[in-house]
Protein backbone atom coordinates (compact mmCIF):
# COMPACT_ATOMS: atom_id res chain seq x y z
CA UNK A 1 0.00 0.00 0.00
CA UNK A 2 1.19 3.46 -0.81
CA UNK A 3 0.03 6.76 0.59
CA UNK A 4 -0.48 9.11 -2.31
CA UNK A 5 0.51 12.74 -2.17
CA UNK A 6 -3.04 13.85 -1.49
CA UNK A 7 -3.64 11.37 1.25
CA UNK A 8 -5.23 8.76 -1.01
CA UNK A 9 -4.23 5.20 -0.21
CA UNK A 10 -3.38 3.23 -3.33
CA UNK A 11 -1.95 -0.21 -3.90
CA UNK A 12 1.47 -0.08 -5.53
CA UNK A 13 1.38 -1.71 -8.95
CA UNK A 14 4.36 -3.90 -9.76
CA UNK A 15 3.46 -4.06 -13.45
CA UNK A 16 3.39 -0.30 -13.92
CA UNK A 17 6.32 1.78 -15.03
CA UNK A 18 6.38 5.53 -15.54
CA UNK A 19 7.55 6.46 -19.03
CA UNK A 20 7.21 9.38 -21.37
CA UNK A 21 3.70 8.11 -22.23
CA UNK A 22 2.45 8.08 -18.66
CA UNK A 23 2.14 4.80 -16.80
CA UNK A 24 2.81 1.77 -18.97
CA UNK A 25 2.40 -1.94 -18.33
CA UNK A 26 5.52 -4.05 -18.62
CA UNK A 27 3.95 -7.48 -18.52
CA UNK A 28 1.86 -7.97 -21.67
CA UNK A 29 3.88 -10.87 -23.13
CA UNK A 30 4.09 -12.54 -19.75
CA UNK A 31 0.39 -11.99 -19.10
CA UNK A 32 -0.48 -13.43 -22.50
CA UNK A 33 1.51 -16.58 -21.83
CA UNK A 34 0.22 -17.06 -18.29
CA UNK A 35 -3.43 -16.49 -19.16
CA UNK A 36 -3.43 -18.08 -22.62
CA UNK A 37 -6.19 -20.49 -21.67
CA UNK A 38 -8.45 -17.86 -20.12
CA UNK A 39 -7.98 -15.54 -23.09
CA UNK A 40 -8.89 -18.32 -25.51
CA UNK A 41 -11.96 -19.13 -23.43
CA UNK A 42 -12.93 -15.47 -23.41
CA UNK A 43 -12.69 -15.24 -27.17
CA UNK A 44 -14.67 -18.45 -27.54
CA UNK A 45 -17.75 -16.90 -25.92
CA UNK A 46 -20.55 -16.36 -28.47
CA UNK A 47 -20.69 -13.06 -30.33
CA UNK A 48 -23.50 -11.53 -32.34
CA UNK A 49 -23.63 -12.99 -35.85
CA UNK A 50 -23.73 -9.69 -37.75
CA UNK A 51 -20.56 -8.72 -36.00
CA UNK A 52 -18.08 -7.95 -38.72
CA UNK A 53 -20.33 -5.54 -40.56
CA UNK A 54 -19.95 -2.92 -37.89
CA UNK A 55 -16.34 -3.64 -37.14
CA UNK A 56 -13.93 -0.76 -37.18
Amino acid at each position, binding site marked *: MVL*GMRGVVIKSN*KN*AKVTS*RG*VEATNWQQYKEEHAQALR*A*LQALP*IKSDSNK*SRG
Partner: protein
Amino acid sequence: MERIVVVAVCGYVYLNLRNLRSGRYLARDSGWELVYKSFLYGSFHIALAYGVWRLIHLVSPSFAVDLRDCAATAFGEENVLLALAAGALPLVVLTANLGTSRLLMAIRAAMNVGYTDKLREMPQRFRDALRGENEMLLAPSSALWQCLYENVGQMVLVTLESRKVYIGFLSQVELREYVPFDERTLTLILIKSGYRNPDTLAVEYTTNYKDVDISLTLFVRHVVSLSPYDIEADSHFARQRS
Protein backbone atom coordinates in the same frame (compact mmCIF):
# COMPACT_ATOMS: atom_id res chain seq x y z
CA MET B 1 8.56 51.89 -25.24
CA GLU B 2 11.62 50.41 -26.93
CA ARG B 3 12.74 49.12 -23.55
CA ILE B 4 9.59 47.00 -23.27
CA VAL B 5 10.27 45.66 -26.74
CA VAL B 6 13.75 44.60 -25.59
CA VAL B 7 12.17 42.61 -22.75
CA ALA B 8 9.63 40.95 -25.04
CA VAL B 9 12.17 40.07 -27.71
CA CYS B 10 14.50 38.65 -25.10
CA GLY B 11 11.74 36.39 -23.74
CA TYR B 12 10.53 35.44 -27.22
CA VAL B 13 13.98 34.38 -28.36
CA TYR B 14 14.48 32.37 -25.18
CA LEU B 15 11.10 30.61 -25.50
CA ASN B 16 11.69 29.67 -29.11
CA LEU B 17 15.21 28.42 -28.49
CA ARG B 18 13.93 26.32 -25.59
CA ASN B 19 11.08 24.85 -27.62
CA LEU B 20 13.34 23.97 -30.53
CA ARG B 21 15.96 22.42 -28.30
CA SER B 22 13.60 20.29 -26.26
CA GLY B 23 11.52 18.97 -29.14
CA ARG B 24 8.46 20.80 -27.83
CA TYR B 25 8.10 22.79 -31.00
CA LEU B 26 4.66 21.40 -31.79
CA ALA B 27 3.49 22.34 -28.30
CA ARG B 28 4.83 25.86 -28.54
CA ASP B 29 2.86 28.74 -27.10
CA SER B 30 0.81 31.08 -29.21
CA GLY B 31 -1.53 34.05 -28.84
CA TRP B 32 -1.71 35.95 -25.58
CA GLU B 33 0.00 33.18 -23.69
CA LEU B 34 3.05 33.71 -25.87
CA VAL B 35 2.98 37.45 -25.13
CA TYR B 36 2.68 36.90 -21.37
CA LYS B 37 5.39 34.29 -21.35
CA SER B 38 7.70 36.43 -23.48
CA PHE B 39 7.46 39.21 -20.90
CA LEU B 40 7.80 36.77 -18.04
CA TYR B 41 10.94 35.09 -19.34
CA GLY B 42 12.33 38.32 -20.76
CA SER B 43 12.10 40.10 -17.43
CA PHE B 44 13.52 37.06 -15.65
CA HIS B 45 16.58 36.95 -17.88
CA ILE B 46 17.16 40.67 -17.74
CA ALA B 47 16.92 40.52 -13.94
CA LEU B 48 19.37 37.61 -14.04
CA ALA B 49 21.74 39.59 -16.24
CA TYR B 50 21.46 42.50 -13.84
CA GLY B 51 22.30 40.20 -10.93
CA VAL B 52 25.34 38.85 -12.72
CA TRP B 53 26.39 42.37 -13.55
CA ARG B 54 26.10 43.37 -9.86
CA LEU B 55 28.23 40.38 -8.91
CA ILE B 56 30.89 41.36 -11.41
CA HIS B 57 30.65 44.88 -10.03
CA LEU B 58 31.42 43.55 -6.55
CA VAL B 59 34.47 41.62 -7.75
CA SER B 60 35.87 44.06 -10.26
CA PRO B 61 34.16 47.49 -10.43
CA SER B 62 36.20 48.77 -13.34
CA PHE B 63 35.48 45.74 -15.53
CA ALA B 64 31.79 46.02 -14.68
CA VAL B 65 31.72 49.65 -15.73
CA ASP B 66 33.34 48.66 -19.02
CA LEU B 67 30.67 46.01 -19.47
CA ARG B 68 27.99 48.54 -18.66
CA ASP B 69 29.27 50.83 -21.33
CA CYS B 70 29.09 47.97 -23.82
CA ALA B 71 25.53 46.96 -22.89
CA ALA B 72 24.42 50.45 -21.97
CA THR B 73 20.87 50.35 -23.22
CA ALA B 74 19.82 46.78 -22.56
CA PHE B 75 21.06 46.14 -19.03
CA GLY B 76 20.94 49.58 -17.41
CA GLU B 77 19.62 50.01 -13.89
CA GLU B 78 16.35 51.72 -14.86
CA ASN B 79 15.67 49.04 -17.47
CA VAL B 80 15.88 46.31 -14.87
CA LEU B 81 13.22 47.93 -12.70
CA LEU B 82 11.06 48.28 -15.78
CA ALA B 83 11.62 44.65 -16.67
CA LEU B 84 10.59 43.51 -13.20
CA ALA B 85 7.42 45.58 -13.42
CA ALA B 86 6.69 44.10 -16.85
CA GLY B 87 7.20 40.63 -15.39
CA ALA B 88 4.71 41.14 -12.58
CA LEU B 89 1.86 41.95 -14.98
CA PRO B 90 1.86 38.67 -16.93
CA LEU B 91 2.27 36.77 -13.66
CA VAL B 92 -0.91 38.34 -12.35
CA VAL B 93 -2.77 37.70 -15.60
CA LEU B 94 -1.54 34.10 -15.78
CA THR B 95 -2.64 33.52 -12.22
CA ALA B 96 -6.07 34.89 -12.98
CA ASN B 97 -6.34 32.77 -16.14
CA LEU B 98 -5.04 29.45 -14.87
CA GLY B 99 -5.96 29.64 -11.24
CA THR B 100 -3.30 29.53 -8.57
CA SER B 101 -3.15 25.75 -8.30
CA ARG B 102 -2.60 25.20 -12.01
CA LEU B 103 0.02 27.94 -12.13
CA LEU B 104 1.86 26.37 -9.23
CA MET B 105 1.53 23.02 -10.97
CA ALA B 106 3.00 24.43 -14.17
CA ILE B 107 5.90 25.95 -12.25
CA ARG B 108 6.45 22.67 -10.42
CA ALA B 109 6.37 20.74 -13.70
CA ALA B 110 8.87 23.16 -15.20
CA MET B 111 11.13 22.72 -12.20
CA ASN B 112 10.88 18.93 -12.37
CA VAL B 113 12.96 18.60 -15.53
CA GLY B 114 15.78 17.16 -13.47
CA TYR B 115 13.44 15.08 -11.40
CA THR B 116 15.76 12.13 -10.75
CA ASP B 117 17.80 14.08 -8.23
CA LYS B 118 14.73 15.00 -6.25
CA LEU B 119 13.50 11.42 -6.32
CA ARG B 120 16.52 10.38 -4.29
CA GLU B 121 15.54 12.72 -1.50
CA MET B 122 11.98 11.46 -1.26
CA PRO B 123 10.72 9.01 1.31
CA GLN B 124 10.62 5.37 0.25
CA ARG B 125 6.83 5.22 0.04
CA PHE B 126 6.75 7.99 -2.54
CA ARG B 127 9.49 6.33 -4.55
CA ASP B 128 7.40 3.16 -4.70
CA ALA B 129 4.53 5.12 -6.15
CA LEU B 130 6.64 7.18 -8.50
CA ARG B 131 8.81 4.41 -9.87
CA GLY B 132 9.97 6.60 -12.74
CA GLU B 133 13.18 7.92 -14.16
CA ASN B 134 12.57 11.52 -15.04
CA GLU B 135 8.84 12.06 -15.34
CA MET B 136 6.63 13.42 -12.65
CA LEU B 137 3.74 11.27 -11.53
CA LEU B 138 1.53 12.26 -8.70
CA ALA B 139 -0.35 9.50 -7.01
CA PRO B 140 -3.96 9.30 -8.15
CA SER B 141 -6.22 11.76 -6.40
CA SER B 142 -9.62 10.27 -7.14
CA ALA B 143 -11.23 6.87 -7.37
CA LEU B 144 -11.05 6.83 -11.18
CA TRP B 145 -7.31 7.53 -11.31
CA GLN B 146 -6.77 5.11 -8.47
CA CYS B 147 -8.64 2.40 -10.37
CA LEU B 148 -6.72 3.17 -13.56
CA TYR B 149 -3.37 3.05 -11.80
CA GLU B 150 -4.09 -0.19 -9.97
CA ASN B 151 -5.31 -1.95 -13.11
CA VAL B 152 -2.39 -1.19 -15.40
CA GLY B 153 -1.21 -4.61 -16.59
CA GLN B 154 -4.62 -6.24 -16.00
CA MET B 155 -7.74 -7.00 -18.03
CA VAL B 156 -10.36 -4.28 -17.89
CA LEU B 157 -13.83 -3.65 -19.27
CA VAL B 158 -14.31 -0.11 -20.51
CA THR B 159 -17.62 1.47 -21.44
CA LEU B 160 -17.56 4.65 -23.52
CA GLU B 161 -20.12 7.43 -23.77
CA SER B 162 -21.24 6.00 -27.11
CA ARG B 163 -22.13 2.72 -25.31
CA LYS B 164 -19.26 0.99 -27.08
CA VAL B 165 -17.64 -1.62 -24.83
CA TYR B 166 -14.06 -2.79 -24.99
CA ILE B 167 -12.42 -5.59 -23.09
CA GLY B 168 -8.68 -5.53 -23.17
CA PHE B 169 -5.37 -5.43 -21.45
CA LEU B 170 -4.74 -1.98 -19.99
CA SER B 171 -1.29 -1.22 -21.32
CA GLN B 172 -0.94 2.52 -20.80
CA VAL B 173 -2.60 5.32 -18.92
CA GLU B 174 -1.64 8.98 -18.66
CA LEU B 175 -1.33 10.02 -15.02
CA ARG B 176 1.29 12.74 -15.08
CA GLU B 177 -0.33 15.61 -13.29
CA TYR B 178 0.69 18.37 -15.69
CA VAL B 179 -1.16 16.68 -18.56
CA PRO B 180 -4.62 18.30 -18.63
CA PHE B 181 -7.57 16.00 -18.04
CA ASP B 182 -8.93 16.49 -21.58
CA GLU B 183 -5.69 15.27 -23.10
CA ARG B 184 -5.26 12.19 -20.97
CA THR B 185 -5.34 8.87 -22.78
CA LEU B 186 -5.45 5.19 -22.00
CA THR B 187 -4.35 2.36 -24.28
CA LEU B 188 -5.90 -1.08 -24.46
CA ILE B 189 -4.64 -4.18 -26.23
CA LEU B 190 -7.99 -5.41 -27.47
CA ILE B 191 -9.36 -8.84 -26.67
CA LYS B 192 -13.03 -8.35 -27.42
CA SER B 193 -15.39 -5.52 -28.21
CA GLY B 194 -19.09 -4.94 -28.44
CA TYR B 195 -21.74 -2.53 -27.29
CA ARG B 196 -24.34 -2.14 -24.62
CA ASN B 197 -27.83 -3.05 -25.67
CA PRO B 198 -29.85 0.18 -25.72
CA ASP B 199 -32.76 -1.41 -23.85
CA THR B 200 -31.15 -3.69 -21.31
CA LEU B 201 -27.65 -2.17 -21.20
CA ALA B 202 -26.28 -5.70 -21.13
CA VAL B 203 -23.01 -6.16 -23.02
CA GLU B 204 -23.30 -7.78 -26.44
CA TYR B 205 -20.04 -8.76 -28.06
CA THR B 206 -19.51 -8.20 -31.74
CA THR B 207 -15.82 -8.71 -32.37
CA ASN B 208 -13.07 -11.04 -31.23
CA TYR B 209 -9.49 -9.97 -31.76
CA LYS B 210 -7.98 -13.43 -31.99
CA ASP B 211 -4.21 -13.90 -32.20
CA VAL B 212 -3.57 -10.25 -33.03
CA ASP B 213 -2.32 -7.50 -30.74
CA ILE B 214 -4.37 -4.49 -31.75
CA SER B 215 -3.86 -1.56 -29.46
CA LEU B 216 -6.41 1.19 -29.17
CA THR B 217 -5.80 4.57 -27.57
CA LEU B 218 -8.78 6.37 -26.09
CA PHE B 219 -9.32 9.68 -24.38
CA VAL B 220 -10.08 9.09 -20.70
CA ARG B 221 -12.73 11.82 -20.95
CA HIS B 222 -14.88 9.50 -23.12
CA VAL B 223 -14.86 6.72 -20.56
CA VAL B 224 -18.08 6.29 -18.61
CA SER B 225 -17.10 3.28 -16.57
CA LEU B 226 -14.07 1.10 -16.09
CA SER B 227 -13.83 -2.10 -14.13
CA PRO B 228 -11.36 -4.91 -13.70
CA TYR B 229 -12.55 -7.76 -15.90
CA ASP B 230 -13.12 -11.20 -14.48
CA ILE B 231 -13.85 -13.87 -17.06
CA GLU B 232 -15.46 -16.25 -14.54
CA ALA B 233 -17.86 -13.60 -13.30
CA ASP B 234 -18.76 -12.74 -16.89
CA SER B 235 -19.55 -16.30 -17.91
CA HIS B 236 -21.58 -16.67 -14.69
CA PHE B 237 -23.76 -13.71 -15.67
CA ALA B 238 -23.98 -14.99 -19.24
CA ARG B 239 -25.33 -18.31 -17.94
CA GLN B 240 -27.80 -16.44 -15.74
CA ARG B 241 -29.17 -14.51 -18.69
CA SER B 242 -29.58 -17.50 -20.99
